[in-house]
């Protein structure tokens, strides 16, 4: 009944649409806060240039915002269309933060964003500033709730399986919100968004300064971006470390895969800066290690060993064996009617923590309980995510993080020394850095989500089981449709961005087609 192709196709579609969405979201969140900061300066100093800056960056914000909305709509409904079983299995917990996001955050952001554009002449200065801040707050809250939902996929706290409803159910909303993974993810991700906003403003300001246009606006924008960006870039890296720590607590396999750490290392483990992981021999060639660093980041101690992939696979095998017992008990419970047999129930309760590991066998044998030793071993190795893309994505992401700190620090130094305008080498460098935060964000997303595989919900629900009962033809159709459509729109977005960046601030109202003839 279950076609594996469907799960791969659905993953491809979800992954691609999420990556598209994440091209626009970081800039929205980052720029929204920068706009609020610029407008605050305007209201406090009453200097017209700051209002112009807010309006100009706001125009570019608007072009990007439309794409964020367009790509976001798909995300909200794709769980239902393509991940129906997932939606049933965890909707009781996962749906709540998504709905609250709409109610508390997205409503706020979307309702006031219209006033941000259309309210300039209708609101008092402070009134408009309030609106801008509400948009910024809304977009940040939005990120918070989405990451609460996402963090639950990485670290499913506050919930328990209910055999009567055949799904996970919430046991503590408090635990779901205050999931430590949610907190570290939120601060890491929004800081990355601020960095994106700051690099965007800095690169385009650098372009103006290189061209000798709009110098007043560009210099001020650059100063704001440099200080805001430096603070954000530092916090991305520091809080990324927090993410590493929380990952080591609950997703040991993800961490081991990112490090391509085959064997358990004696404490404190070293960090592999470079190496060529070999998936056949389970070793790394040309390893270059910095001693102690990984152990310190991941365990914050000098004496806690970090488990390697091979030992984690052995652990997974034990859990799969327990999962088989859980699955067998669940099957009997579901089949029985009336009052459940107390013995089966207590057996299930004892082993249900490992039910998800039992479900890993569904790929090999639908009945699960008749799995052979070879199948169990195979399923245990399935818990290892795809090492090579993780290993490299992570290293490039971190590399970009440090590069951007250096960039912002330089900008900050130059602007403090008032040498920004004449340092053309730096302006060129700033302009060239424009794509970096996007690359880092997408790589970060890959590390987090690709590294979660084979799980949709870590340890609870394998991704391949979460799909809808649709045909591969249907998914191919929508997959191609989304990709073609999004690519076209993204192209239009870039064309418009370039056009309005070239036009620069202080442009005329949009022209009309001054024709009296009937239009289509």
């Amino acid at each position, binding site marked *: 009944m279950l076609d594996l192709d469907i799960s791969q196709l659905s993953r491809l579609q979800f992954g691609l649409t999420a990556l598209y969405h994440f091209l626009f979201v970081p800039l929205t969140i980052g720029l929204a806060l920068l706009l609020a900061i610029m407008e605050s300066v305007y209201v406090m100093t009453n200097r017209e240039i700051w209002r112009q800056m807010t309006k100009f960056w706001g125009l570019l914000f608007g072009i990007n915002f439309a794409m964020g909305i367009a790509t976001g709509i798909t995300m*909200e409904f794709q769980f239902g269309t393509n991940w129906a079983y997932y939606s049933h299995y965890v909707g009781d917990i996962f749906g709540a933060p998504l709905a609250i996001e709409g109610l508390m955050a997205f409503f706020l952001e979307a309702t006031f964003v219209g006033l941000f554009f259309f309210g300039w002449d209708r609101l008092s200065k402070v009134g408009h500033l309030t609106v801008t801040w509400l948009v910024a707050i809304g977009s940040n809250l939005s990120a918070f709730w989405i990451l609460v939902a996402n963090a639950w996929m990485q670290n499913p706290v506050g919930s328990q399986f209910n055999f009567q409803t055949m799904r996970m159910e919430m046991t503590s909303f408090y635990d779901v919100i205050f999931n430590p993974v949610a907190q570290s993810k939120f601060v890491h991700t929004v800081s990355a968004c601020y960095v994106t906003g700051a690099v965007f403003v800095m690169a385009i300001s650098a372009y103006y300064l290189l061209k000798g246009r709009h110098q007043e606006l560009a210099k001020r924008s650059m100063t704001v971006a440099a200080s805001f960006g430096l603070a954000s870039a530092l916090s991305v890296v520091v809080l990324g470390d927090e993410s590493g720590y929380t990952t080591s607590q609950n997703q040991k396999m993800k961490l081991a895969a990112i490090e391509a750490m085959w064997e358990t290392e004696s404490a404190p483990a070293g960090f592999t800066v470079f190496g060529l992981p070999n998936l056949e021999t389970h070793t790394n060639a040309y390893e270059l290690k910095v001693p102690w660093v990984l152990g310190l980041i991941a365990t914050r101690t000098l004496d806690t060993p970090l488990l390697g992939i091979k030992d984690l696979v052995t652990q997974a095998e034990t859990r799969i064996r327990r999962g088989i017992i859980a699955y067998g008990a669940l099957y009997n419970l579901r089949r029985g009617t009336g009052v459940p047999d107390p013995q089966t129930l207590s057996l299930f309760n004892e082993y249900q923590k490992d039910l998800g590991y039992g479900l890993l066998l569904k790929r090999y044998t639908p009945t699960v309980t008749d799995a052979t030793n070879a199948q169990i071993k195979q399923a245990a190795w399935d818990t290892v995510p795809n090492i090579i893309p993780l290993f490299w994505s992570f290293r490039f992401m971190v590399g970009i993080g440090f590069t951007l700190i250096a960039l912002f620090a330089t900008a900050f130094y130059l602007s403090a020394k008032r040498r920004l305008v004449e340092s053309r080498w730096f302006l060129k460098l700033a302009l060239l850095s424009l794509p970096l935060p996007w690359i880092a964000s997408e790589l970060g997303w890959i590390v987090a989500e690709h590294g979660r595989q084979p799980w949709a919900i870590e340890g609870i629900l394998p991704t391949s089981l979460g799909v809808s009962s649709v045909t591969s033809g249907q998914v191919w159709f929508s997959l191609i449709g989304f990709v073609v*459509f999004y690519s076209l729109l993204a192209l239009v977005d870039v064309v418009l961005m370039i056009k309005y960046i070239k036009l620069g601030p202080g442009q005329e109202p949009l022209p009309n087609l001054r024709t009296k003839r009937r239009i289509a």
Partner: protein
Amino acid sequence: MIHELVDYETLRVIWWALLGLLLIGFAIMDGFDMGVAILLPFTTKTDTERRIAINSIAPVWEGNQVWFILGGGAIFAAWPLVYAAAFSGFYGAMFLVLIALIIRPVGMKYRSKIFHPIWRAVWDCGLFLGGFVPSLVFGIAFGNILTGVPFYFDETLRSFYTGSFLDLFSPFPFICGLLSVSLFTMHGATYLALKTHDPITTRSKKAGVRAALVSMILFTVGWLWIKNGWVPGYNILEISGFDEPSNPLGKIVTQDTYAWLTNYRLYPWMWAAPALGYGGACLTAVLLLIKHPGKAFITSAVAQLGVISTAGLSLFPFILPSSTHPSSSLTIWDASSSHMTLFIMLASVIIFLPLVLIYTAWVFRVMRGKVSEEDVLTNTQSY
């Protein structure tokens, strides 16, 4: 535990009502945006006129659209089985809606940013589809829910849809689709008449009156269809309880020719719903004719409320009946989230929805007044 303050059965009924409220909120708020988009080719002839119409909704439509997004989120959180079975079952239709809704934000924002007749004509076409397609598909989806959807659950509660994409377009659902298009068009017309000057106002009034009449006719046709038993309803014969854990396989349901009228027979006060649907549409036509677009907007909103409630009350307690495996049908008693989740979500709605209504009202107040040619031509921020 605190969530036991409200019992499970009551929470399920409340969440059924909230689902209705969100749908009505969506129809009233985003309905007029879609109506305006549908009316673009019919009420505006020149580029300036078209921009006036677009700018009449430009400051508010993004907020309005959240009613749709929230509707999806609320179904996910409160009725996960419905979210899973309906959206995967209506796969092709959902894809169409999503593509149409993707065009909308981009079309609004990008249309006037480039000065070229073809560029603008393409986006105009996109905006029209962005209003028309979702309106049609929502009505068709509602119609299919009334006729029953071919799906079932296996013993692990995985849902299987056994129909095809084209099955969705049978005559009754199609009438429902046209009804929702005409209702949104009527609603959009009252809004346009309220927010613009002549000649758009006059054209909108005319279109609004026509849409109101068409709505009344289609509503009657749909009603007769059900009254004559051409669309059978469903009845629960046996169910283990109203506060049991959600398991849609624990009941017996049969198809029953006049079952969609049962509630109206048992509770005559429910006739208020279709009465509001008719009365609202009728008054809208009259008020548009005597040039009271503001009041017409309100009566048109009442019509949306009346028509959606008519369908909802008729279905109660069903949310998604199955035509091929009636006992797999989803009802409010066996498709909801857990007691705790329903309670938490109710608390969030009680806290945040009033706030949303207050600040939305404030935004509409700030943006009150008609959109003129001058606004569009001189404001650098206009679309």
